């Protein structure tokens, strides 16, 4: 990507100064957008969902867009984060921040577990292995009825107030809930920006661009892949934990392979391998789904037509195409 110092595709002179400014301060700009975002949304709960799915897609995009591996099992990472956060609160009575930490740790661990088994495969095999392993995770949580509620889902993740440095905040209030969750998402965007701008971020892209050459240059390709996958799990685990706190339930559907497919769709729609694309994809997808389904029960028809239009006219994703135009 052009953001990284190693990039040689884009001579600096060719880009506009506003573009350079935007790439340098990308995380701050995302933060600004997120702060005013709920004002233009139909309802706040949707805005929160977009943040969470945007974060989920951001984590997924690290593997898909930057590392160049298509994973079809990210629901396992997202769902494990949600379930661990929920179980920590419902069954162990942990405070909310510890529960979020449990969710992130769950995402990291699950990614390590799946990654160790799957990372040596490539292409379609990687997609299939990750999908199969995520189905195993689905049944694991489905069968552990005492902990997860099984078919009925996990209920009772009820966080009414959160204590922040002696301040008692009403977490039921939709706007406050939005900004608390937004704080975590913004922090995650800064971390992601840092990872991508680091030398390690350059290695990730080097592996994507030419594996042989990266190996010849002395980088451990397998370890890079595994580490990237685990990092991605951390972001997805955080997204899952926030989802559990937001909806106060964890449905078993969160681990279904449709949730894995959804994030592929969101990443493609927004623009794979772009920093802000996942958030754009999540916003477009969820807003369309929610707004059109209020107008008509045949909303799938309309949403489907819009997707076809997007694929035809924005082949690099909505954000990806806009960036390409802006760069010209």
């Amino acid at each position, binding site marked *: 990507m052009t953001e990284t110092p190693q990039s040689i595709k884009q001579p600096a002179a060719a880009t506009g100064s506003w573009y350079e400014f935007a790439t340098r301060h990308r995380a701050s700009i995302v933060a600004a957008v997120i702060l005013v975002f709920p004002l233009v*949304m139909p309802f*706040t709960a949707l805005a929160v*969902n977009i943040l969470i799915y945007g974060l989920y897609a951001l984590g997924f995009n690290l593997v898909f867009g930057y590392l160049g591996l298509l994973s079809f099992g990210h629901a396992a990472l997202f769902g494990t984060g949600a379930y661990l956060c929920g179980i920590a609160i419902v069954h162990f009575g942990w405070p909310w921040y510890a529960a979020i930490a449990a969710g992130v740790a769950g995402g990291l661990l699950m990614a390590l577990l799946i990654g160790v088994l799957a990372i040596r495969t490539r292409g379609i095999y990687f997609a299939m292995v990750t999908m199969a392993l995520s189905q195993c995770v689905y049944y694991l949580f489905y069968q552990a009825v005492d902990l997860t509620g099984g078919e009925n889902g996990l209920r009772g993740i009820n966080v009414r107030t959160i204590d922040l440095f002696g301040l008692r905040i009403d977490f039921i209030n939709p706007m406050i809930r939005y900004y608390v969750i937004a704080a975590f998402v913004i922090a995650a965007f800064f971390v992601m920006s840092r990872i991508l701008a680091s030398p390690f971020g350059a290695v990730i892209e080097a592996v994507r661009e030419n594996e042989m050459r990266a190996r010849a240059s002395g980088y451990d390709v397998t370890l890079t892949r595994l580490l990237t996958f685990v990092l991605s799990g951390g972001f997805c685990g955080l997204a899952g934990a926030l989802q559990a706190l937001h*909806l106060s339930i964890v*449905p078993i559907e969160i681990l279904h392979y449709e949730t894995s497919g959804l994030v592929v769709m969101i990443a493609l729609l927004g623009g794979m391998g772009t920093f802000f694309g996942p958030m754009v994809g999540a916003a477009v997808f969820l807003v369309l789904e929610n707004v059109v389904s*209020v107008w008509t*029960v045949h909303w799938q028809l309309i949403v489907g037509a819009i997707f076809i239009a997007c694929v035809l006219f924005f082949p690099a994703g909505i954000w990806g195409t806009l960036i390409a135009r802006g760069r010209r």
Partner: protein
Amino acid sequence: MTNKVTKAGSISRRRLLTTASAGAALAVSPFRINLLKAEEAAIKIGFPVPLTGPYGAEAQDQVRAGQLAVAQFNDAGGLNGRKAELIVRDDRLNPGEAATRTLELVEKEKVNFVVGSLSAAVQLAINNVTKERGVIFNSISQSDAINEAADFSKHTFHEALNPHMTSGAVGRYAFAKFGKRVAFLTADYAYGHEMVRGFLEVGKEFNVENLGDIRHPLGTTDFSTLLPRLQALKPDILCISNFGRDQQIALKQATDFGIKKSIQIIAPLLSHASRVAAGPQAFEGVVGGCSFYWGIEDKFASTKAFNDAFRKTYDGKLPTDYGALGYGGVRTVLEAVKGAGSVETDKVVAALEALKYDDYKGPQYYRKCDHQSVQSVLVIKSKSKDLRNESDVFEVLSTEEPNEKNLRTCEALGHKS
């Protein structure tokens, strides 16, 4: 936008038109900034149901019936002239989507009450959101868990039957009549498990012999390997606890295998919509339970009144079992509003607890400890001859009258007595 404006002000007509149309577009678009406070005038009832997905037909029937209840309330003058309004949302049969939609209904639409849902997991998700925010929720689909102390709150009401009541009624009828040797074919998820648990519980009274329980995953399309195994057990009764398309296919293949010749098939719940979809052959002679059938109009004036109103509003169509639940769920809440003379939550809860109603299927009331609607259960048999109209698909064999004895006890559910 007359000439006067253009002359008097310095704004050109074009700019005025652009601004006005942009303003109008913004006003109708859902993206507008919500600076205006929601009007307090109407009594709002949120209604999340799965309009799309496998239960779409049932859900649309629920909406029709729910709207009828609202229209009747408004025609009767509302609450001192204050009208009610039904706000329908598609939950797509997904608990996460249902929770999001319920948040929208409560936080943005500021609904006074929530009625709806058509799956156990979805109603538990909605319930968790509403009970956190102190909003009354009246559930209109089956679940045992919603009665239990862990999920219950004083804002939770359950208008539908639960699996324990349904399987109990069918079991009491079938075990006394068809024999004691029972085999089970069960969909391997909460609905099937809860039904079998109910059957076995009631079976203890009759000393039934459990020959075996074969589980199949949800969405099975071929039962041909399972049915001979069940046949070999030589039961008197085969109890098939599944729903929707699974039920249609299982019954059709059981008919093809000739199981019905020697074995009586029972199902905890026979859905009107499934029976219509699968046709008379597959369901022929199958005995099962339901909460409502339009044919009991000979027995209850309230059923007759409901059927007639439904026919009149919807071109002679008759309500289905699930549609009737939509009507009952909305109507009891509005009745309680009228009784309380207010939409204040605590007063409406008290009015609902005190309510003795006969709205569409004979007398009912909400039990104090778990707010489960104590009501009759119909035991019905599918018929294939002498059909009076396209909705004439079942024959009512017996009615189990409303009785708290048929519910799990408050102590067993974890409530303090």
